[in-house]
């Protein structure tokens, strides 16, 4: 089942408590870290928790998650591929 990027963006906003931003304002392909949304290392760790809590995906090594965390789209694809359904 393909995870919708809109749903994922809503969860990111909620989990990271981002203010004054809507899912529509986050570009699917913009970088999540560094530039783009400008998330940092603590946010990466929170997203790892989100993946486990909401999708049952356990990331053992943060390096494993790195390519998946590049953008909303790559993360949605990663979740779709890994989510135990």
């Amino acid at each position: 089942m393909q995870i919708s990027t809109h749903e994922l963006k809503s969860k990111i906003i909620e989990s990271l408590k981002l203010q004054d931003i809507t899912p529509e304002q986050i570009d699917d392909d913009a970088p999540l870290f560094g530039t783009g949304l400008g998330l940092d290392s603590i946010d990466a760790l929170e997203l790892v928790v989100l993946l486990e809590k909401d999708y049952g995906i356990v990331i053992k090594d943060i390096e494993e998650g790195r390519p998946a965390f590049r953008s909303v789209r790559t993360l949605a694809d990663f979740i779709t591929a890994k989510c135990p359904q």
Partner: protein
Amino acid sequence: MREPEVVIAGCGAVSAVGCGIEPLRAALRNNVSGLRTIEKFSTPRFQSNIAGAAPRDPDADDPAWLLAAEALQQARTAAGKTLLAIPPGKTGLVLSTTKANIEALERVSTGRPCSEAARRHLRADLLAADLAEAHGVRGPVQAVSTACVSGLVAISQGAKLIRRGEADAVLVVGVDCLTEFVVAGFTALKALDPQGCRPFDRDRCGLSPGEAGAAVVLMRADLFAQPAITVRAFGGSNDANHLTGPSRDGSGLAQAIHAALGAAKLSSGEIDFVHAHGTGTGYNDAMESLALKTVFGGACPPVSGAKGMLGHTLGAAGVIETIGCVLAMLHGFLPGTPGLTHAADGTPTGLVREPRPVARLKNVLKLNTGFGGMNGALILSHV
């Protein structure tokens, strides 16, 4: 009127290498590590089960009090008659701690027995007040909490109280305990080394938690007749970069070192030894190496770190690691760096792996950094 000099008149410690100053000296001189498998609580959920636990009742409900009180008692005994001669109203106390008796939160939340005193000591200011009362202090009392730089800041504050004439002696005590609270937190940050920390090592990948109680008695130099180590100067700064990651170029720590050197009226060339923060995380040790390069250029003095021996003792670190420097200065040796096998690229060329005797350490620089961008540099001098 010139401000008085401040000396260290006595020390006390209880940590992963044992109870007392002599076990600490022996461990430092012989590069012994106190890191062990955690026995106090179950650890499969955590990233590492290795830590530096102190010899104390693992079921105590007020370990912060136990460790702090033990260290204070030792330090006061070591300071002897000169401390007793100082009126209580001119004796102060400064506590350094990040979590105080957080054990009480764990107990209350899981329905385990927890005394009133243990619960009261959740609050660092009340822990400080009670320690002061129990140890003959009627002068100024402060509870410092500046993350992992707390110990150095507390020593600096104690020295200021004496220099300002508010006290003639100050008991400075640092304490933090090994708890699930802390281990779970560092696990969430993925900051622990499953094998035990390896400061400055090319294969390092995280820190090891530790617990300790450590205390020094600071005293006006003219009241302490014996040769002693002076608390010469302290410099602090903030990276203003990120809450848990140090500034990548080490400039904040370099600024703190320069501030300390300036206050001490010393040039970098007059520092004989640097005791590093050296947590064993990728970022910290790289940043610290850069800061040392900035300050010392190619002429960095010998550098070592104790967290592979004691673990990261948080609020106690600045105090117990300063005591390590004092012991090195008094007994004429350079401590090694337990946990270090192969130094990483970019680390100081003067990294000391194994302890060795040294002719004389006149000026020693002690460094600590902490969450929130805190940086601290303390300079100790042999009179």
